[in-house]
């Protein structure tokens, strides 16, 4: 499963990095999302879904490809 992110909406909460630390990190200062793996393996799909749904700014959009 792939995903898109809209960085301009990111509020730096770090919710994604807590939910899916293999896929997301934050930068040191303002906490804006940093993508560690744009093509996560299938076994991380539930973590990716969790990150997308918990993000308080709806930055992460899942796509099926």
């Amino acid at each position: 499963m792939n995903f898109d992110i809209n960085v301009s909406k990111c509020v730096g909460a770090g919710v994604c990095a807590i939910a899916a630390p293999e896929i997301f990190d934050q930068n040191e200062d303002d906490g804006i999302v940093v993508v560690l793996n744009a093509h996560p393996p299938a076994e991380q799909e539930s973590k990716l879904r969790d990150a997308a749904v918990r993000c308080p700014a709806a930055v992460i959009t899942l796509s099926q490809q």
Partner: protein
Amino acid sequence: MSRISHPTPRTVIVGASAAGVSAAEALRTRGYDGDIVLVGAENHEPYDRPPLSKQALHDPVSVGALTLRPPNHLQNLGIDLRRGVAAVHLDSRHRKVLLEDGTDLEFERLIIATGVNAKHLPADNNISGVHTLRTVDDALHLQAALSAASRLVVIGGGFLGTEIAAAAIQRGVEVVLATKAPTLLENALGSEVGQQLTSLHQKQGIRLRTGNDALVQSLRTNGHRVTGVHFASGGTENADLVVVAIGSEPAVDWLRASSLTLSDGVVCAADCSAGDGIYAVGDVARWHNPLFDLSMRIEHRTNAVDQALHVADRILAGDRLPYTTVPYFWSDQYKVKLQAHGYLRDHDEVQILQGSIEEGKVIAIYRKGGRLTGVLGAGAAKAVRQWRAHIESRTTWAQALEVAQSNS
């Protein structure tokens, strides 16, 4: 009770903001195959609230830009969204919710997500130029009013009041900010951080009234139009715009005749259940958070979703696992983005570990009893998130100070 009376199991969710929408979506996407009815009092597509006191006050925004989900997303999930209709009564014995249009909604499960309403001053109704901010309609009105305003008095020095004051002065409006505490945000963050934030606002040109000088006696009006605020200590501030940001109260009037326990919110057990098959989530829910061993009601955006997902999972799993969470919030104060994890209110001690608000980089930790209970930061998001892990693992204050020592 008569849980099997309805042919298809039905979950009714009252409140269609972040918590209600997340609960509905999670139920469906995680396997619930009963009916889901999502009831919202506002006439808009479900939208997001944190931007209302931030971007939405700077530029005119469309409601469409704030929606929580793409158009038809909920309908495509088979969620029956009823917009623009408030719930007016819960009949817990017969397991139904009465809506203001006369509809009776029977339910097997009920999730209460009605949030909070802004508190008003006594007798500020029907005076033009006096605003509160809770809904997107409020934000659109306030945004427009700021375009025409020359002098604003904000009553209330919490997060909402300070964010509104910041937006207004950046738009060229003269601002007086009145807070009953000695400093801004003192109740939430403590006096030292509060003092630093107060300086930040003063440097931007905000004029402050604090303590007894901030107690409002009455509004001065000309006809139905506000022209100023009389303060109890004697002074009057001229104003063509007044914003009342003195807090909020749980939206529970529709539950007063029900069997649920109400006490500053819907009182829930640790799993967020408030009755048999009845749950509350988001700003309206008061529950016992085992991680802090405290009764909490959290008005934060991330909690709305986390709590909703927790309840959806309890309904699907049929268990009563407690909801354990480290609260999180952020606030934009000019260029400074504050981020906090944990429970900072009612703390016993604050230690600023490094930096200051003025430098735009600060980390402060909070103690309650013998434990580390909170961390506040700006410009240090990742370090702050590491402190969150220490809060989650119930680190003692002594251990926290050792960690701080070894980090420095």
